């Protein structure tokens, strides 16, 4: 019973924050709404018994990735966003598309609910950190390692992009990284990844 009450509270928080994310005009308000969504999702994971996933959701998404988002918004000092009426194609294809997707989800969930013999309720499962570790490092070791290579490629891509020399006129790095060492040439190139 308590599980159901908590589920509805945090599910509605998540949905409300997600809607707020879209409605807010200022990027920092949108980013903060997204943090609320992440937090609410973490609670939902916890209710499902996935405690490790919940904690990691909080640490990685709310604590690291969204901090970077907020950091970039602050650094660029992004102002209010401009609104456009939106394209007609998006409205024409988008609305029926969303309706179809929701209908499909409802259909699938309803079917599995009927087929399932006993019918499970929230909080029936409990997955410990040991279980996840065992699955991740024994049964699914190869996908796990491949993912880590993917992340490595992402990092290398970021480094390449940040160190690129032929950037626009606003970037001062070309002259500074030129061959002749100047006394004042110490600063920017290092700073970009701070």
């Amino acid at each position, binding site marked *: 019973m308590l599980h159901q009450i908590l589920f509805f509270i945090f599910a509605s928080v998540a949905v409300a924050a997600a809607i707020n994310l879209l409605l807010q005009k200022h990027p920092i308000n949108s980013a*903060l709404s997204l943090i609320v969504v992440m937090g609410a999702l973490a609670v939902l994971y916890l209710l499902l018994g996935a405690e490790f996933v919940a904690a990691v959701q*909080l640490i990685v998404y709310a604590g690291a990735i969204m*901090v*970077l988002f907020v*950091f970039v918004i*602050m650094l660029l000092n992004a102002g209010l966003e401009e609104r456009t009426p939106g394209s007609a194609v998006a409205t024409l294809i988008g609305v029926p598309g969303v309706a179809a997707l929701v209908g499909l989800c409802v259909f699938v969930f309803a079917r599995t609910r009927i087929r399932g013999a006993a019918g499970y309720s929230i909080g029936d499962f409990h997955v410990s950190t040991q279980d996840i570790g065992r699955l991740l490092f024994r049964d699914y070791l190869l996908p796990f390692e491949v993912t880590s290579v993917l992340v490595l490629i992402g990092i290398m891509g970021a480094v390449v992009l940040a160190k690129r020399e032929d950037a626009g006129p606003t970037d001062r790095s070309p002259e500074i990284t030129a061959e002749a060492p100047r006394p004042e040439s110490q600063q920017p190139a290092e700073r970009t990844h701070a």
Partner: protein
Amino acid sequence: MTWPIFILVSIIKVALVFFIVMTAAAYTVWLERKLIGRMQNRWGPTRVGPFGLLQPMADGIKFILKEDLTPPYVHKTLFVLAPMIALIPALLPVSLVPVGGAITIHGITTPLEMTGVMVNGAPVDINIALLLILGITSVGVYGIALAGWSSNSKYALLGSLRASAQMISYEVSLGISLVGVLLIANSLSLREIVNQQAGTWFPGVPVLEWIPRWNIFPQFIAFFTYVTAAYAETNRIPFDLPEAETELVAGYHTEYSSMKFAIFFIAEYCNMFTVACIATTLFLGGWSGPVPGFLPPILQALLPVFWFVLKVVAFIFVYIWIRGTLPRFRYDQLMSFGWKFLFPLALANVVVTSFVVAWFAK
């Protein structure tokens, strides 16, 4: 235990811990001013009360009576919200830290911890307490970041940018430094980790048997990286660039006054407490210490709390000592130290520890 008593006990515990943490934060400020004063050959506060002991109260009254000024052109909502976002994650982790075994008063047995429960006569805490603490503290950076941004002031903005970059960078080392301890303990529950540190390393060997079985001995590299990263996370000297007063006036809280400023101050000291509590629990054996058997039961239950508090105070003393000793890093030094020295060191510790643990497991 019936549920009305459970709720009553919980409320008493929450009120007690809140009172203790707030008082302790206030008196850490006093201790810091006294110690730094003595290190710099001054007296520190002496005027209010004996040894200046009433100074924190005077400071508190002063903060409350000051005008609460909201500068024009600030982002109002976030400006008000930021101190709260800074304080709440600073206070929450204390609720997850166990400070002793269980205590029995008037037939009611309860663990010496805010969130613990009794299961089959033994105190039990949340099994992912450490992860939760990491998650909660990682949210604390928003308070500082938003404070600087919403102030609409260049010094505050620079301070909060520095804080965000610094906290992201050092959080990686902070998290990884704890992995070594977790590999040894094989558990994420703080109570479990402390229980494993009871006793000594070499029972029976003459002099060596006095060395307690604390994690700091096999994991001293992890301890070093944790403490260093934690100093950076709490914005303390030598990592206090977000509030470097010689460059940024006061950093992220430049535009704050009265109680709003004081809340940032309290949050910083509460964060110090959290760090001290986690370091004590993970590396210094938590509440474990000698407890003589001839004491009355109530003292036997409370003596471990005394050991815990003693270790926390010692840790905070070192915190203050470092502040009195080291100068502030330059920003590029801070970044290269964090990424090029601390992070590889923490990783190497994880690799070595896992090999050793795997070796002994066979």
